[in-house]
């Protein structure tokens, strides 16, 4: 391991490279621009390709093309760029193309405030694209975690044949920290997508599944197999070639359910979280991303004051870890959810703790000023009194 002073956005890049990403298509956007800048330099160095596309739609489409040839691919964006990407994002998830997208969240709707940070895309990450697509979303809290989690995102995307979103934040992307990086990325174990094991003539297509939990093999373009990548009614149950004659309704049902079930059946491998002193906690702070650090600070202060506080730091946000939330709040009387939005994660926590009688309150800021531990403490006193 080598200690390096690293920008958060560079940590995303190094995580992608360590995970084996060799194709990056980007479009500059604050506060994610440094990722494109670093990738334009790093991709050719490691034998990969960087291309600057004409817009975010183009970036997503280009990485979808590149990934279809078997090259691990990624892009990054923020704010309105992520909004534009939703079109192709849903397309890639439905077409089951492994990709990683880093969203360095800025604040505000529309073009928002480019240079300010937020956590306002929790729901967009899951519900942004049309047509009931699932999502896998990971949210790092520190620069070092940004590296390891992005690496993990690449592996998950390959394992699950889906798009994994790394939900960063402006203040994470633009902060520098000393981090431990592996000396040799080649020694890191990476996951590769399932590829066909049968000869081309017997290959039933990229969507040949019979079970809802299946992640079927995908053939690289140019590898001798006829590889059709599509989200248009291609997933006839059990495969077989083109189903361009129209998809039967039960096959449509199977297709959409399988996209979700393949993730849910592997939820244990996707779900990452950190729990601190939750065993006896009567108040649990549930937070993610940079604001989880404030929650941890508040927890220590509360404990010093004799309040039994604990923290559940959500690292995987989607699929939302309901069971983990319930387990961590077994002894809780109340839950505080501090986040840089008006209560998106609180909604999910509330859903997980429905009918438990646990009081759920939020500490919410949308002014891009980091929530201070004292604000969480104030809320703690208020809710416990």
């Amino acid at each position, binding site marked *: 391991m080598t200690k390096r002073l690293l920008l958060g956005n560079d940590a995303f890049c190094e995580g992608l490279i360590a995970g084996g990403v060799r194709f990056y298509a980007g479009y500059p956007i604050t506060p994610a621009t440094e990722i494109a800048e670093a990738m334009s330099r790093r991709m050719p*160095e490691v034998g990969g390709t960087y291309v600057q596309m004409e817009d975010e*739609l183009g970036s997503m489409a280009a990485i979808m*093309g590149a990934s*279809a040839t078997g090259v691990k691919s990624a892009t990054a964006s923020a704010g309105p760029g992520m909004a534009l990407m939703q079109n192709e994002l849903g397309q890639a998830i439905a077409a089951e193309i492994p990709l990683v997208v880093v969203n360095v969240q800025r604040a505000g709707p529309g073009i928002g405030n480019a240079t300010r940070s937020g956590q306002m895309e929790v729901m967009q990450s899951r519900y942004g694209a049309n047509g009931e697509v699932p999502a896998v979303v990971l949210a790092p809290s520190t620069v070092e975690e940004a590296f390891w989690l992005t690496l993990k995102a690449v592996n998950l995307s390959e394992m699950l044949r889906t798009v994994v979103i790394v939900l960063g934040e402006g203040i994470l992307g633009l902060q520098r920290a000393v981090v431990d990086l592996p000396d040799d990325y080649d020694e890191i174990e990476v996951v590769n997508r399932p590829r066909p094991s049968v000869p081309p003539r017997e290959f039933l297509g990229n969507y040949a599944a019979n079970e809802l939990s299946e992640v079927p093999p995908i053939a690289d373009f*140019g590898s001798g197999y006829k590889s*059709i990548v599509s989200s248009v009614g291609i997933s006839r149950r059990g495969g077989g070639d083109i189903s361009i004659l129209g998809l039967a309704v039960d096959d449509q049902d199977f297709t959409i359910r399988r996209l979700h079930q393949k993730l849910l059946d592997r939820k244990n491998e996707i779900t990452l979280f950190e729990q601190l002193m939750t065993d006896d906690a009567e108040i649990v702070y549930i937070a993610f991303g940079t604001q989880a650090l404030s929650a941890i600070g508040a927890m220590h202060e509360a404990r010093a004051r004799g309040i039994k506080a604990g923290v559940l730091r959500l690292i995987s946000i989607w699929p939302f870890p309901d069971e983990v939330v319930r387990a961590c709040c077994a002894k809780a009387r109340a839950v505080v959810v501090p986040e840089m939005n008006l209560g998106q994660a609180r909604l999910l926590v509330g859903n997980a703790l429905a009918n438990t009688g646990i009081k759920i309150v939020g500490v919410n800021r949308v002014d891009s000023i980091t929530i201070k531990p004292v604000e969480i403490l104030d809320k703690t006193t208020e809710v416990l009194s």
Partner: protein
Amino acid sequence: MNLHNEMPATRAPKKKPDLQRPLDELVELYATVPDKAFRYCPGCGLGMAQSAIMRAFHRVGVDITKVATAGGSGCYSVMGHYFQSSHIHGSHGRGCAYATGLKLARPELTVLTLQGDGDLLAIGGNHFIHAARRNIDITVICFNNYNFGDTGGQFAPTTPLGSKTDTSSLGMPEPAFDACKLAIGAGAGFVARSTVAHPAHLTKMIADAIEWKGFAFVEVLQHCHVLWGRRNGMPEAMDMMRFYTDNSVLNPSRIPEDEHFDIPVYSEDEKNVKFVLGVLHKERKPEFTEEYAKLRAKAMAKMPGKVQS
């Protein structure tokens, strides 16, 4: 449309080698025949365009497993499924962006985009002009049927001025794009136009485009008698074929490099419509994937064997 009936095997061999080969053989080599009917309307020009592409594959001698196609939404969008090559059937208009990723990631692939006029020039216009600007070695084939056929015949950026469509029932009030001029302006190295009424010529144009090192564009005038033709006095497929043959001016199919013919596709005067067919523009310039390979070699030489910076 039934490809097998288009050219009976009993037909006497012609001089042109591309047309001489029975379609059955080409279908065997390059196509996957769906278990039921083709999805084109009876008499649609797409079937002819498809067979021209297969003939072009044969003429160039491509390895079909090394061919990748990309396309989005439209009447043409099923065509990619009918070839033995790999295909991205993606969202509307992104064909050129998919192709850019495909070609950059695997430069050894022969990459084509199959796109309609609405797909390529309306929603996908940005990707089209930028792929042309990059001069990336892909072949963009635009099936121009003057309207959005898949949605029932609304006007497209190519709909001739004054003509009637679903959304211009009183006559198209907007001037049309000349797709070839747009491609030339955006920096395409090879630009050609042909029609489905000139199958041998069309085959040659597509073959030349595939062989061209760099961005190549072929506009295929492909009739939609069912929607555009019916509303504009040409209700039968043959009416529109005649429309193309009667109003076409054939350029020499091979022009010297670094030259182009500056003749508009649509004249202002409706009565004097002329389509200029043939290669309209040829210009050699550095190809993007090759240039990038040089850049990559330089960058890798700087840090031999190191993955981390």
